[in-house]
């Protein structure tokens, strides 16, 4: 625990388990519960909470689990974090020495190579065999996890190492942690990119996760304003202010169609994003990428996405590369180019404003509908939170991205991106983890929670209640695994078999789930279901007041599918 304290962990997220009982007992007694032990009700929740926490705090918590059954539970959440380039620090208990395993369960919970099952989607793991080895590997694991591309690591804590006293006279030392400087682009390559950007008539930036920290948002704004170029956003982080005139995401097809140069920064499916423009071979196009994803890749899982042909690829962290790129661009901009850029920026601002007008018109359709439209729910919620210090901690995809379309998002903590690997069950635990990080800042955490996702591990609400983690959860209760409803419907139609059976295995009805009662049973104040949009505003007001008083609150809202 002295090693972990030296690293600076603020919290332990764990569901208790005997194979790491030695560490658990040390946390609460030897360390006086500092780092604070947050009781989780599922290992998948522990890791998803750590995932959400890291996206707000910028660093991992300490997570613990059994090396066998605990890691098995946690594996999908680890995969989400892996795909989402999020640092997770996981310590798992195991008994390597067969002579020291306790009975049948002890054997069931022991494994030769504990981290093997997640090695394909973790950056590094180790099985230390001495305390000194443990200290060095623990520090190394943190350093590796935090070096872009930031990713999960696993450290095995042998039960004998945990449980036995340090031999008298043993000289142990804790190595100093020094984080590796994020890799930035080669100077010559940056100069080439700057030349191409300044010479281009319509450069467009596509960002995936360039907002690794709050500084990344500011730097991207500076680059875009320097060039007066458009920015499209894959919504994997808070990368760029959504109401900035250069934000072109809501007219991304048109913006990319006009591009003669596309610069991809820490993108995910870059191939899919730029494919329509690449297909138009009549217009010349240059493609540049800057991503730490080029620096570290594994074979088995295919989250690296389809290969994208480019004219110049810089293997580096985009955020770390942006300062040099901005300076290189500024040096090349002549008065003539500046005038061209200003004219371009003006046109982009007008196009962006028109796109926003179209979105508002779109939001008005179904305004009075019941079940309530996701656009209206988002608009009503925005009116209630816009004067608060707020943080939206949900994947916006299933809510038709309305919060991103209608809210003034400009700070890094205003949005934390999506699940990473599209693994369902991420939403509510990631939100609770993010809320832990927001709590110390007195920030209002907003979670718009998909119903199907919530039911994977609803016990996380108890965690929020028990540890007094303030947050407002709005249930996106569309009463189905809606994505799958549409998928099965599509399949049935393609086979011309009728669609009257598509609810089998996809709808969450008969009975409908009473989320307000479920929340109450877990110690969380709640209300709903709300079916009339006129009832939203007063409910949201009540929920925000409770969250601001330091408690979680849940409001069940019957919503449209999307």
């Amino acid at each position, binding site marked *: 625990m002295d090693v972990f304290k030296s690293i600076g962990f603020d919290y332990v997220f764990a569901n208790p388990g005997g194979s790491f009982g030695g560490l658990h007992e040390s946390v609460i007694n030897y360390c006086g519960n500092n780092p604070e032990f947050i009781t989780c009700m599922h290992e998948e929740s522990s890791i998803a909470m750590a995932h959400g926490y890291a996206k707000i705090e910028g660093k991992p918590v300490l997570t613990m689990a059994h090396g066998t059954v605990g890691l098995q539970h946690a594996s999908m959440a680890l995969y989400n974090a892996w795909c989402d380039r999020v640092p997770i620090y996981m310590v798992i208990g195991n008994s390597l020495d067969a002579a020291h395993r306790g009975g049948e369960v002890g054997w069931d919970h022991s494994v030769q190579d504990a981290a093997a099952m997640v090695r394909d989607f973790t950056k590094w793991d180790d099985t230390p065999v001495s305390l000194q080895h443990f200290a060095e590997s623990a520090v190394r694991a943190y350093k590796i996890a935090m070096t872009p591309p930031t990713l999960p690591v696993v450290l095995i804590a042998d039960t004998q190492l945990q449980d036995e006293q340090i031999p008298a006279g043993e000289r142990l030392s804790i190595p100093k942690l020094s984080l590796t400087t994020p890799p930035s682009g080669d100077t010559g390559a940056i100069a080439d990119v700057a030349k191409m950007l300044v010479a281009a008539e319509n450069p467009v930036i*596509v960002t995936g996760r360039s907002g690794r920290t709050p500084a990344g948002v500011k730097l991207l704004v500076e680059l875009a304003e320097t060039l007066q170029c458009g920015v*499209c*956003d894959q919504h994997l982080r808070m990368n760029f202010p959504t109401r900035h005139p250069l934000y072109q*995401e*809501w*007219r*991304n*097809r*048109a913006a990319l169609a006009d591009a003669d140069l596309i610069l991809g920064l820490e993108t995910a499916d870059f191939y*899919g*994003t730029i494919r329509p423009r690449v297909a138009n071979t009549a217009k010349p196009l240059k493609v540049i990428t800057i991503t730490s994803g080029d620096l570290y890749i594994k074979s088995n899982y295919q989250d690296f996405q389809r290969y994208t042909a480019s004219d110049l690829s810089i293997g580096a962290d985009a955020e770390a590369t942006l300062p040099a790129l901005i300076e290189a661009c500024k040096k090349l901009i002549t008065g003539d180019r500046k005038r061209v850029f200003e004219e371009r920026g003006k046109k982009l601002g007008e196009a962006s404003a028109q*796109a*926003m*007008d*179209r*979105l*508002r*018109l*779109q*939001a*008005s*359709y*179904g*305004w*009075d*509908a019941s*079940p309530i*439209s*996701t*656009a209206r729910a988002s*608009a*009503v919620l*925005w*009116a209630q939170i816009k004067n608060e210090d707020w943080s939206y901690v949900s994947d*916006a*995809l*299933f809510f*038709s*991205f*309305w919060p991103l*379309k209608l809210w003034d998002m400009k700070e890094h903590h205003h949005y934390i991106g999506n699940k990473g690997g599209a693994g369902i069950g991420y939403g509510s635990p990631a939100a609770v983890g993010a809320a832990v990080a927001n709590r110390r800042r007195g920030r209002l955490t907003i979670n718009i929670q998909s119903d199907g996702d919530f039911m994977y591990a609803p016990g996380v609400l108890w965690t929020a209640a028990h540890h007094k983690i303030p947050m407002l959860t709005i249930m996106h209760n569309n009463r189905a695994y*809606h*994505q799958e*409803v*549409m998928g099965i*419907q*599509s*399949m*049935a*139609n*393609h086979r*011309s*078999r*009728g*669609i*009257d059976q*598509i609810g089998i295995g996809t709808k969450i009805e008969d009975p409908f789930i009473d989320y307000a009662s479920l929340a109450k049973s877990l110690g969380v104040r709640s209300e709903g279901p709300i079916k009339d949009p006129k009832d939203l505003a007063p409910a949201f007001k009540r929920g925000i007041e409770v969250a601001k008083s330091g408690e979680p609150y849940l409001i069940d809202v019957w919503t*449209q*599918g*999307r």
Partner: protein
Amino acid sequence: MRNLGLAMAVFTLTPMLTLAQNGGDAENGKRLYLRNGCYECHGTVGQGAGANPVAPKLAPQPIPLAQLIAYVRKPAGGMPPYTSKVISDAQLSDIRAYLASIPEPPPVKDIPLLKP
């Protein structure tokens, strides 16, 4: 990244038709619209959806019946085809009547929550 532009283009091209011009039984159309799962992607009042999938709005002012039938039988993009075995032309006429019966939303300028 979602293709809003395409969705918007679909419904800006739609001419306005009245219920009388269309014919069809709006009440039955509503029942069919919900039973046949049109609402899953397009919303219960045909308002459309903005993501996953991007589904264009269908109402108010639905496209002409002939165009609707042609599209449903051979759709573009991610929409699956509905053959006449699954849904008849007469039923589509009723669905169109339902869509045509859906009132216009309040103008955006009259919705304070949507002011920039």
